[in-house]
């Protein structure tokens, strides 16, 4: 049984992504290297968080891992198997293994599709599950993510942002994937709802031994959910390591800058700031 555990669920080797930026009538286009050779691997049941600011290439990497875009160079392995989606389209088996949840639950659900149909569609496309069983599984999944079976026939607009993200997560889980790629899944949500969705993700990971690749710009969320962290800046992984090591002792200047910029609600820091303000005001009054 050791082999199944030892092989990483997903592994990237020297992944590179070039985008072609078209020029105007008179100037030629140019290549932009969005990812400059990324290596990583995630073991089963673990969460790799990819942190970075806009333009860092974190969503580009997420799209490669989710088998949406092929990398320009490098190799992606799922369960130890090299995948090249330019040569051969991934079949239903492979598609079932890797699923994705997007940032904006208002954009990622079809407004004309009932929730039940949203959940059953992956089964229709990828499996030969009979209709009755599809419905049964969709209803069961609704309950798993904290919704009710009677939500089956409702449309997405009847749900709040947090509920919609639950629906998107439920859809991603319908095919019993091994790997879930989550691209900023809680950044569009209010704080109180964010906590519920993060708890849900943690519960589901335990129950199904899911592997997560979790893309986020929010260090406090990453600290809560990640096992390993990769810090991306301008297409390069400037720092990679376990959550404990990275948060205890960040090495790279960019990681340190990110930490320094993240607002904290630490009482001593507030006390010091209030004191500084008071002194500044007294100086002005004199």
């Amino acid at each position, binding site marked *: 049984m050791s082999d199944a555990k030892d092989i990483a669920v997903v592994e990237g080797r020297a992944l590179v992504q070039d985008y072609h930026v078209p020029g105007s009538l008179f100037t030629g286009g140019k290549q932009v290297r969005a990812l400059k050779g990324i290596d990583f691997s995630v073991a089963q049941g673990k969460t790799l968080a990819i942190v970075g600011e806009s333009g860092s290439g974190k969503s580009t990497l997420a799209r490669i891992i989710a088998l949406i875009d092929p990398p320009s160079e490098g190799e992606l392995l799922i369960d130890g198997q090299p995948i090249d989606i330019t040569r051969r389209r991934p079949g239903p088996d492979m598609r079932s293994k890797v699923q994705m949840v997007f940032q904006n639950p208002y954009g990622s659900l079809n407004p004309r599709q009932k929730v039940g149909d949203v959940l059953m569609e992956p089964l229709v496309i990828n499996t030969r599950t009979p209709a009755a069983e599809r419905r049964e599984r969709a209803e069961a999944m609704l309950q798993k993510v904290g919704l009710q079976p009677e939500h089956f026939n409702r449309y997405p607009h009847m749900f709040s942002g947090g509920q919609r993200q639950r629906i998107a997560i439920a859809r991603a889980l319908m095919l019993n994937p091994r790997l879930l790629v989550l691209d900023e899944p809680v950044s569009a949500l209010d704080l*109180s709802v964010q906590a519920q969705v993060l708890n849900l993700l*943690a519960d589901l990971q335990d129950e199904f031994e899911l592997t997560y690749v979790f893309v986020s*710009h929010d260090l*406090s969320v990453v600290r809560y959910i990640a096992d390993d962290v990769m810090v991306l800046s301008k297409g390069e992984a400037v720092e990679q390591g376990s959550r404990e090591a990275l948060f205890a002792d960040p090495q790279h200047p960019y990681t340190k800058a990110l930490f320094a910029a993240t607002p904290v*609600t630490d*009482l001593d820091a507030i006390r010091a700031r*209030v004191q500084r303000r008071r002194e500044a005001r007294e100086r002005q009054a004199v």
Partner: protein
Amino acid sequence: MAQLNIRNLTVKFATATGSFTAVDGIDLHVDPGEVLAIVGESGSGKSVSMLAVMGLLPDTATVTADEMTYDGRDLLRMSRSQRRKLIGREITMIFQEPIASLNPSFTAGFQIEEVLRLNLGMSRKQARARALELFTAVGIPQPEEKLKSYPHQMSGGQSQRVMIAMAIASNPRLLIADEPTTALDVTIQKQILDLLMKLQEDYGMALILITHDMGVVAETADRVVVQYKGRKMEEADVLSLFESPKSAYTRALLSALPEHATGDRLPTVSEMFLREDAE
């Protein structure tokens, strides 16, 4: 005397299914030179109450208040022309989406000079010189070049700096910033907040900061108002709010911060509390 004083503000929207109360009896004041943070989640009415002050709500909104005064002057009974003299000069506002706040068809320089000419009656030449001064004050690199740039040629952080430059052009006494850094990366957010705080201190203006982010509150505010579903849950100075929050809602919000997670699970703003409060 308070710079802005609001008592029992209620804002109702006429909708197809009847009237909807977005702000329900809010009391609020900000003193000269003070930084007030209004915190709440979506639907708390935090933006709506400030849009009511600015007179920027659509016609479907009904605004009532026992008092809404700026510097002792009654904003509710003021004529439109009197109000226009205040808004955009003494009271200015910046918004969440800096790129959407700028007109894509005109250069940044043209847009800020327009503000200076129309609101402050400057000549073109004066406006050009003052615009350059303001761009320098808000820390835009190569300010002369950037005056000639169009919004799409600037980053989000730079666009927000342009918006701030416009907002402080008239030396306002009150600046209202509605989620000014929500669309920006954390490192840029830090720069913009530092800039706002520096300008606030240099110019001695009052600043109302509308935000959903407790971290932003902790790093900027003197005093905090917490809103939930159109009502004020709590009002306190910033240290007391984080040290000993009085309302159950504030406590729930603070404990839902991932940085406060102690075990495996995050405490959530419990459904129980939400139901209790809705009644």
